[in-house]
């Protein structure tokens, strides 16, 4: 039972045009950077991308690779939060291709809670469910509403991604996974939700090195694993190093440390 593959190319083999792919995006870490690069390289088309935060990043690609980069290959987006590239078009050198593609994109933006819940319903093989969140808002539009015991709810259907790209910290070859800090985020949910779960990790440990209690994602939810090169692109060490290189530039430092402000107007809270 060895789920480890030698390359990212092999790990994404068999992903067809039109596939749906779910992945985590919150901060610089916890995203499957090398899996995204491999998918871009292969040029699969008409993808449905599912991520909690789909947004432009001001960081250069050499620092961090985000789902946003897949835009030219996408047909549809399902997200909890979405910030359009067009908002930043005047302040960045974003290719016009991205702006155009983004306009055509079919978008389903349902908030973080309902987004996570449609994935969890799929993970558990459950049917549709009623959520109380979004009542009285635009999230209601086009969806069934129903009153139970005097309270209104919106009906959501489970969404099962064909593939999850999961970023973990460590794995054993059976597929048991652990995560570091806030990199955990959506990753364990994704691993459980997808038909096929492909994992990018920094370190491979021997079965038995994990205590059975510390494992966050049990092996049953994992299909393929690729291990990042030590210190190589997309690894924790690499990304830390690149970020601290930027932080060492005084003019850039403030923007990064107060990064939130880039995406925040008066009231917005993503």
């Amino acid at each position, binding site marked *: 039972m060895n789920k480890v593959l030698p390359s990212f190319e092999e790990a994404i083999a068999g992903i067809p045009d039109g596939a749906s792919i779910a992945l985590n995006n919150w901060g610089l*870490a916890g995203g499957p950077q090398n899996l995204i690069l491999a998918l871009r390289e292969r040029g699969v088309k008409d993808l449905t991308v599912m991520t909690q935060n789909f947004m432009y990043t001001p960081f250069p690609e050499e620092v961090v690779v985000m789902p946003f980069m897949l835009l030219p290959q996408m047909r549809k987006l399902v997200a909890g939060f979405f910030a359009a590239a067009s908002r930043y078009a005047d302040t960045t050198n974003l290719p016009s291709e991205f702006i155009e593609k983004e306009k055509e994109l079919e978008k389903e933006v349902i908030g973080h809670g309902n987004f996570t819940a449609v994935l969890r319903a799929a993970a558990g093989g459950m049917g549709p469910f009623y959520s109380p969140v979004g009542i009285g808002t635009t999230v209601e539009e086009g969806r069934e509403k129903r009153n139970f015991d005097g309270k209104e709810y919106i009906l959501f259907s489970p969404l099962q991604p064909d593939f999850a790209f999961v970023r973990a910290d460590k794995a054993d070859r059976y597929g048991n996974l652990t995560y570091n800090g806030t990199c955990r985020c959506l990753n364990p949910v994704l691993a459980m939700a997808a038909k096929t779960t492909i994992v990018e990790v920094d370190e491979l440990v021997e079965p038995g090195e994990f205590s059975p209690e510390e494992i966050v994602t049990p092996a049953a939810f994992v299909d393929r694993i690729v291990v990042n090169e030590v210190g190589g692109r997309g690894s924790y060490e690499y990304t*830390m190093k690149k970020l601290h290189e930027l932080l060492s530039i005084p003019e850039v430092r403030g923007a*990064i440390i107060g990064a939130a402000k880039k995406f*925040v107007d008066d009231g917005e*809270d993503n």
Partner: protein
Amino acid sequence: MKEKLSEEIMALRAAKEFQDGNIINLGAGIPNLCAMFIPEGRNIMFESENGALGYGGIIMVDEFEKVEIQHIDAGGRYFLPKEGMSFFDMGTSLDLMRGGRLDITCLGAYQVSAKGDLANWAIPGDISVGIGGGMDLVYGSKRVIVIMEHVTKNGEFKILNECTYPVTGKKCVSVLVTDIAVIEPTKEGLVLKEYAPGWTAEEIQKLTEPKLLLADDLKEIEL
């Protein structure tokens, strides 16, 4: 024009609402400043939607060497570790939020209505940005504290009979802290509880569309 409260003073006033042992989610912007003004002797656990609870202070520019990429909050700020801190997945985090385990959510707003509706995620007709966790936060939190400027930069009402911007949640605001007043939405309407130094109820009413009721114990903001 009389002086309005600064961002820091608004955050200081809002933070007075924090009780010992509270679990609190702070939105980006002014709400985040509240962490600097926690009343003495009150232990607070901050929760971040991406799956962290009980973390330490936000890293400031002069401490940038301490930045760890796996210690990031929902607004993209880096935090310090703290004993008793925990990490969990986003499913658990959203359960925590919706399920009623958050004592306070503190966030900014575009508009607040007479009924306590909140609009803070979108501008009408602008589909370039969308939703996030705000709807979950205002649905699930025991108390929702909104901090915002009383009127827009152009002097337009932000406190309205009805929100004209897309709403984040209906009847969800517990208390509103502005740069000139503290207002509490009630069944009877908006109650003016406190005013900034030098401001009168009449002056505040002029900058507020709905009729304000005056609290029996209406007083100057204590800080």
